[in-house]
Structures are given as structure tokens and as C-alpha cells.
């Protein structure tokens, strides 16, 4: 797994559509924000999908099988400029850290940190996201 540190995703672009902002805002329990602002919760899936990967691929890279639970340790999102629907963002990033924890009598846990930059059309950094997931290695 250590070999994955330094892995760079292909990079790419993402435009938040109005329907997507509407439905995701509604799913959190509020109306869409004014002035085409996207709900900040988009900073979960826009970086992942926009950088050219997916939740499924992240699980596959970490060799997760159906019997192995995945849990989130943390998200750390910095927003330099509010994210808006209808704007195209450029995403870049990769896997920046890995750690294995082994303890007698407990499942082995592999943890990865992913870091992705979100840039606006002028190339200025709009947001930076980091997240760490734990992959629990359970005997199936």
C-alpha cells in the first residue's frame, strides 16, 4: 500500500449543474443558496469525481473488498472563494500519505490521505480539500 503514496490522479474539470446543486442542497434540508452559490458540501464529490477518480476507484486502489468496512477519519476543507454552480473548476491532486495500524486482537487498519486542489477558471485556487479514510481489513 505504501507504493500508492505519491500517486497522482489524472486531473480534470467539473461543472456543478443547477439540478445537482438543487438536489444536493435539498438533501441537506435547505433550499439552494442565492446567487448561484453551490452548497459547500459539494466539496466532497466534486474533487473526487473531477480529479479523474471515483469512490469506487479509491476503494479498488486500496484493495477493499465487500467485507472490509471503510470509515472516515476526517475531512479538512479550506474555501478561498465560494463555489458556484455553472462554473468550471479544474482539479488536481493525489494520495499524499499512508499508515498501517496493527494491534493484537483488532483488525488491521490501512489509512490513506487524499489531497485535491480546486481551481477556478482563472487558475486561482478556490478550495483545497484533504480527507483521510480508514480501510478495515476484516477476514471474510
Amino acid at each position, binding site marked *: 500500500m505504501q507504493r500508492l503514496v505519491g500517486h497522482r490522479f489524472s486531473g480534470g474539470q467539473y461543472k456543478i449543474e443547477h439540478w445537482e446543486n438543487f*438536489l444536493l442542497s435539498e*438533501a441537506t*434540508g*435547505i433550499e439552494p443558496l442565492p446567487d448561484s452559490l453551490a452548497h459547500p458540501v459539494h466539496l466532497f*464529490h466534486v474533487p473526487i469525481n473531477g480529479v479523474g477518480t471515483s469512490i469506487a476507484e479509491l476503494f479498488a486502489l486500496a484493495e477493499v473488498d465487500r467485507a472490509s*468496512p471503510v470509515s472516515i477519519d*476526517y*475531512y479538512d476543507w479550506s*474555501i478561498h472563494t465560494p463555489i458556484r454552480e455553472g462554473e468550471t473548476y479544474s482539479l488536481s491532486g493525489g494520495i499524499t500519505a499512508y499508515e498501517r495500524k496493527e494491534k493484537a486482537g483488532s483488525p488491521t487498519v490501512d489509512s490513506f490521505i487524499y489531497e485535491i486542489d480546486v481551481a477556478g477558471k482563472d487558475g486561482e485556487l478556490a478550495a483545497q480539500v484533504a480527507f483521510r479514510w480508514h480501510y478495515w481489513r476484516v477476514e471474510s
Partner: protein
Amino acid sequence: MKVEVGDSIPSWTMDRVTPERMKTVAAILRDPTPIHWDRDVTRAIGFDGRLLNQSPINLGYVINMLITWAGPECVRRIRTEFPLPVLDGDCVTAGGVVKAIETQEGVDVAECEVWLDRDDGTRTVQARAWVAIAKEGVTG
């Protein structure tokens, strides 16, 4: 709005977390994890067939509290941990308190301890948020 260290942030409540919203979110996020839509899976892993809400949406409830309090563009940074899951049927309430206020690049930013609790008091989200507030709103 006047803001001081020690102020409580007005709470925000999601009265009932629904499986319908989880399914919408799973599609938008392209999240293949069956814990959000397959009760057989959650029964097998000890959640009595109740579905687990997506962590970004749990964080979204906390963000809703912040933007209701300080405006739709207020969130500058949020660092979040998820000690326990939120399940379908849960009622959850976001809360928070201002821990510090400092000026960053001419903007007053409140550093807040924020959380999301089930109505039985168990904590599901524990976070630190940095929130831009109107300059004239700061006292002390």
C-alpha cells in the same frame, strides 16, 4: 449580528433523516457503498437494517447551521471528524460555540467548535469551523 467569544451558535435541526434522500445522494456522489441503500447489508453489519447517512450530508447539516447564522459565503475552513454514524429515522441537531475571533486578510473570522448530535445526545460529527463574520458584528 454581534459575535463574541463564548457565544452559542443558533442550533439547526434535521427532524428526520430519510432513506429517500440517501438514495438521491448516493446517485449524485456516484457512491457504490451499499450501507446507504441496502438494508440487508446494514443488518449484516449490526445496524438492524437501518441505513447509514452519507458523512458529507451529516457535515452538510452543520454547514446549514453556520450559513443560517453567518450567511451563505461564511465558511472559510472546516475540519471534521465523524465519531458515530447517523441512521435513517434519526433526528439530529447541529450546535456550536465561538472559541476565538481573529482577523485574516482584513476579515474577521470566528473559530468555532461545532457538532451534530442525535436526539439521544450521542455525537455524530465533531468539527472545527472558521467562519467569516461581518466586521461591525465583532465585539470585545
